[in-house]
């Protein structure tokens, strides 16, 4: 049993036309036992930067606190909001600092950068980033997510279509994974608003 599979999760981010979506399941499990079905894995850093984390729940919670700390210090010193690509690099640096005793978390970052350009980034537990312009996945359901996303993704989707696509992809993938599921939430980040919906899904 890998430590990254102790709690179970599925996280996905996708780029659309002037928008990005990030979604996750909501299961909080301890190996086979499901303890709660309302666990948030996607966190808002600010209006245009969101981070979703898959992996060990305790590390995810600690990292959220550490990111919020660093972000507040950044905003106070720099008098501006952090850009998603800069935040991604910060996350990468913070994870690599623990190279030989890492946080067991594989984050996915989604946001709108300069001129509201869609930005997504995912990294492994020691901070190796990957940047693309289509979709990125993480978690115990990552293999299933790769499959559905590859099949269903199309570039330049409008926010509503993007929402549909992400929702379908996430649901289909986590349904195949016994450690993820039990609810899902989706965020679609647009320049002027954020669409946040909780999905009705199979409760098993």
């Amino acid at each position, binding site marked *: 049993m890998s430590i990254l599979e102790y709690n179970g999760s599925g996280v996905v981010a996708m780029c659309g036309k002037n928008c990005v979506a990030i979604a996750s399941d909501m299961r909080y499990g301890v190996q086979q036992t499901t303890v709660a079905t309302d666990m948030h894995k996607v966190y808002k850093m600010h209006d245009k930067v969101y981070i979703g984390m898959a992996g060990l729940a305790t590390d995810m919670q600690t990292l959220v606190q550490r990111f919020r700390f660093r972000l507040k210090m950044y905003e106070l010193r*720099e008098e501006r909001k952090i850009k998603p*690509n800069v935040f991604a*690099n910060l996350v990468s*640096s913070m994870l690599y600092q623990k190279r030989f005793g890492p946080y067991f978390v594989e984050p996915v970052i989604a946001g709108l950068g300069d001129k509201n350009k869609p930005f997504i980034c995912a990294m492994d537990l020691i901070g190796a980033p990957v940047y693309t312009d289509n979709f990125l996945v993480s978690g115990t359901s990552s293999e299933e997510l790769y499959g559905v996303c590859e099949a269903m993704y199309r570039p330049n989707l409008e926010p509503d279509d993007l929402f549909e696509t992400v929702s379908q992809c996430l649901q289909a993938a986590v349904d195949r994974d016994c450690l993820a599921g039990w609810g899902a939430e989706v965020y679609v980040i647009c320049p002027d608003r954020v669409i946040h919906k909780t999905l009705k899904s199979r409760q098993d």
Partner: protein
Amino acid sequence: MASQRANFSLTTFTPSGKLVQIDYALNAVAAGKTSLGIKASNGVVIATEKRVPSVLVDETSVQKVQKLTDNIGLTYAGMGPDYRVLVRKARKAAQQYFMTYRDPMPVSQLVREVASTMQEFTQSGGVRPFGVSLLVAGYDDNGPQLFQVDPSGSYWAWKASAIGKHSVNAKTFLEKRYEEPELEDAIHIAILTLKEGFEGAMNENNIEIGIVGEDGKFRVLKPSELKDYLSEVE
């Protein structure tokens, strides 16, 4: 070893509330060669006198205007060796920032770091304040910026300023002539201001000028370019 360094500060208050060491450091600055900076609408120019102690000195080996990052540079008045230490620390701070954030360090942040270091040396045990004032010029998302940093660690932004021996006259000269110039005009004004207090003839080998424009690239002007500007000013 606790005895390697004094664990008491050498910079202490007088009853009247002055830190005499800092005042003496400012004296060292006031005895240094004149340096000045002018913020233009589309860039910043910094200039300094580069007087070498003897004709035998190879003046190309002396660099008074230095680049800190692609878009930030600085010059000084006061003690050269102290300046070089600060340049090293500033460059390192800027690169560390870039390593963490993959985003160039904003000018004001870098200035804050340098100023913080200078302040440390007025309070830490066994050290003396830096005997330099710095003029930092940079161009970032907030446009062109010019900062002065003093031995005490205080810093503030200027539209135009001068430090060193003839700073008082130079500042008076600048006050009269400053009208948000373009970068090219600012360079001419800088040369004229330097000329005011210059002893002897000014040529391309005894001054140094650094500029940063809208392209965000700080560079030190080559002697050939200086020669052209000097002839334009004649």
